[in-house]
């Protein structure tokens, strides 16, 4: 095998290069050169040995690693309003997605999240325009006609004067939210949601299956709607319009219901829901640990995101997580299930998740040494500048684009 492979390597590389020049896209080029490199792993050049391998089931990156990485970026985004830094975060997330996403259906969600982010920015600005803003400003842009409101609605304003400061503030705020959303979108695009649910602890497994089934359901229903709408054409009716959709609503629901019954029958016949017996005391302890833990996680993450509570946020989050994990572990005794080829948390998963955590920690730290650069002033207006060290720390988030296994090129 190995002599044949080493003989074929030069030709393989040349065809790949030819292909990559044909597809004039920077990401395509980056991907194909790295696959060419990854075929050389049989030779022992150290560089080749550490290059990212081609993705397969065996070396698949743990879905949780992608989520940790993306949440790290999201925490970093929540710590700044500097549009340049936020743009950099979006760029980092976008580059990693472009370099490492597969062509699976869920990988397309990134685009949807970017659009959602832009919509959020627009919405935030429109609200600021219409409802005014408590930001005092001196640069008047224009005045909208103000709607007179009765006395009891004091403090609410519709229309009125619009200042540059208030618009800039709304833009910064919207951009922050949009970046958070885009980071979540990146995690969605990179990690198969079903695989993430598969790594859930045994106690949550049944809930996980329900979610997976529901997720395969939505696309099926969309396909049903499309099919029935085109079938309307066969009856000589128009296919567009609200009425058309309403008319086919019932058949679509009927179809969905029938399918869900069929899936349930299939799951039942294949042993879903076989359980082991556990003593009542274990069950009670499980409930207490899980509930308490989840409350802790909620309070902790609120503290972490709310900027005021950074002090108690982390420890609370940690304690909550531990309690929840213990509860889930105990609850897992009830299920007989075993797991087929679970994703391993290997060195590459540590690097990917670590880079996300590093970005978050570095940004939180940057808040202490360069708070002004991270939150450019709105009153008085000043141009945001790109602070060197925070920007450099965001770039750490690019690490997954080099260490995560490269998805196979679609044929």
């Amino acid at each position, binding site marked *: 095998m190995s002599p044949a492979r080493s003989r074929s390597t030069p030709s393989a590389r040349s065809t790949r290069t030819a292909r990559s020049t044909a597809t004039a896209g920077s990401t395509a080029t980056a991907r194909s050169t790295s696959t060419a490199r990854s075929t050389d792993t049989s030779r022992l050049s150290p560089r080749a040995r550490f290059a990212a391998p081609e993705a397969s089931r065996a070396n698949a990156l743990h879905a949780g690693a992608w989520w940790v990485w993306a949440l790290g970026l999201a925490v970093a985004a929540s710590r700044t309003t500097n549009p340049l830094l936020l743009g950099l975060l979006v760029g980092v997330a976008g580059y990693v997605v472009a370099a490492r996403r597969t062509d699976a259906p869920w990988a397309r969600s990134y685009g949807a999240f970017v659009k959602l982010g832009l919509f959020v920015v627009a919405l935030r600005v429109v609200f600021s325009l219409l409802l005014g803003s408590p930001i005092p400003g001196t640069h008047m842009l224009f005045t909208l006609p103000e709607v007179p409101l009765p006395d009891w609605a004091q403090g609410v304003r519709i229309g009125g004067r619009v200042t540059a400061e208030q618009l800039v503030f709304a833009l910064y705020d919207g951009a922050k939210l949009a970046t958070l959303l885009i980071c979540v979108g990146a995690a969605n695009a990179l990690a198969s949601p079903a695989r993430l649910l598969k790594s859930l602890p045994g106690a949550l497994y049944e809930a996980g299956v329900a979610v997976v089934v529901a997720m395969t359901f939505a696309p099926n229903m969309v396909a049903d709607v499309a099919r029935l709408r085109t079938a309307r054409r066969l009856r000589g009716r128009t296919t567009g319009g609200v009425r058309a959709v309403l008319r086919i609503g019932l058949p679509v629901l009927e179809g969905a219901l029938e399918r869900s019954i069929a899936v349930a029958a299939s799951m039942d016949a*294949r042993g879903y829901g076989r359980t082991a017996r556990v003593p009542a005391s274990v069950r009670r302890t499980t409930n207490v640990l899980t509930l308490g833990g989840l409350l802790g996680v909620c309070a902790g993450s609120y503290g972490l995101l709310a900027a005021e509570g950074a002090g108690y946020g982390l420890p609370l989050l940690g304690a909550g997580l531990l309690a929840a994990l213990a509860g889930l572990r105990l609850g897992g005794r009830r299920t007989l*299930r075993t797991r087929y080829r679970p994703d391993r948390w290997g060195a590459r998963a540590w690097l990917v998740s670590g880079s996300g955590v590093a970005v978050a920690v570095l940004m939180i730290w940057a808040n202490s040494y360069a708070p002004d650069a991270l939150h450019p002033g709105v009153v008085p207006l000043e141009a945001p500048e790109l602070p060197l060290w925070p920007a450099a720390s965001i770039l750490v988030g690019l690490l997954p684009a080099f260490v995560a296994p490269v998805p196979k090129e679609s044929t």
Partner: protein
Amino acid sequence: MIRFDKVSVTYEDAAEPTLRDVDLTVPEGELVLLVGPSGVGKSTLLGAVSGLVPHFTGGILTGRVTVDGRDTRTHPPRELADLVGTVGQDPSAHFVTDTVEDELAYGMESLGLPPAVMRRRVEETLDLLGLAELRDRPLATLSGGQRQRVAIGSVLTPHPKVLVLDEPTSALDPSAAEDVLAVLQRLVHDLGTTVLLAEHRLERVVQYADQVLLLPDGVMGPPADIMAFSPVHPPVVALGRLAGWAPLPLTVRDARRRSGELRERLAGRSPAGLPDGPRPLLVADARRNPAPPAFETPGSAGGVPGSGKGWGGGFSLFRRRRTRATEPTPTGLTPTGPLVLAEGLGVRRGRVEALRRIDLHVAQGETVALMGRNGAGKSTLLSSLVGMIAPTTGTVRVAGRTPHTTDPRELIRQVGLVPQEPRDLLYADTVAAECAAADGDANAEPGTCRALVEELLPGVADDTHPRDLSEGQRLALALAVVLTGRPPLLLLDEPTRGLDYAAKARLVAHLRTLAADGHAIVLATHDVELAAELAHRVVIIADGEVVADGPTAEVVVSSPAFSPQVAKILAPQHWLTVEQVEAAL
């Protein structure tokens, strides 16, 4: 292995029990085939084995069903999961996960098998079913045959002793069906699995069965014995009965070995001279014609069609005169040249070229069968003929109009399509309401559709819900709805899926009458027997291109995968159906 002891099943709201006093014993390691007309309770019997009836479906089961000593009364389906593997009619409704490998492992995970065992069994099953290169594929991207194999594989991995399959091959093309059946054969031989399957397409499965169980009588016996009197039987059996062969042959090979004398008797005759053979009139026309149509090209079995031949102006003029003189024309017909004219038709979906350079001509009164493997582009071609898909390249004209730009209300008077799932066409909650809506859609006189329903589906009450109709009845209703607009061109996508022989025979009779009235019919089908009985011409599509186009006899005889049993038995003579042979004798 499986015992039924005086089993009756009555569903809620049903006046009559679906199964009545069934007694049967299936020994270990046998492949038992369940046959019978639609609605005799085949699926119910299969469900009772896996415990889904009555634990999941509801209803009352009396008597006792035991599988390997376990009583289904005390064991719900999940407690039988390690013993019985069930695959329903629609494999995609069976899938719980999203990739092939996960799906194969799902059942074992539920049973709590150790990871090392699961890994080994998944690898074995991937090899057994030839799925190795599909292991990472999302299930949504698989073809029908692949899905069916994955569904079978997913219930095989827990090593059940009993496998229960409901119509495993009815949605598959002939070669995919053979793959699936070869797998079942291997399971029975190598692993000693007991297999119980129901199937309408007996010509595909009967030779694999060790025993046949005939419902509703509940008689079980060796296939040849049961086939001798079974009302449902494959063409090979019909031919055997006709020729008086005993014991009855079940395979083409057996029949062929005995067919020497029959072939001699048939030697001097030809099916084309038959009174009700396919389209004697038009073939004769074309022979007399100075510009022969494409399908008359001698020896065109593998040829590329529409290579610029025929259908010139002179021909269409001649055709118009003839049509007016003798043939009854459906209303709304404007007889100018061929009814369907596709030239260089190409359809792209995203980056996939679903169709490439398709040339297709269909004349009035002609029946054309589109064949080809699952996903070859047959349905896409039909969709582009009714304007549901706009062509990317080339042109399509149906009765002189471009379908995708024509107003749907006008188009339904030119072309009607019965989709793969006839239910898609039906919205109303009673047959009467459906008919009234169809009359309104087509601007037809009130009562037109209802009259058609009465003709196609005698004795259906007005207030029946379309969902309560059987598969064949629903197809007939959809056909009536489509025919209300009296379109000269009728398209059918997989019309015989899930139909028993009786329903199929009725469909064939209706379609022949329509063709004789001058309707052109194009049907996409995997059912070679249907194509042999109906089609004047067969067009084989592979990978979005036409690879063969010619008279049915020539095309199907030259390609083993698409030839009907009678043609295989009597080759090289061009006989296609038992009916033709019967008439010739």
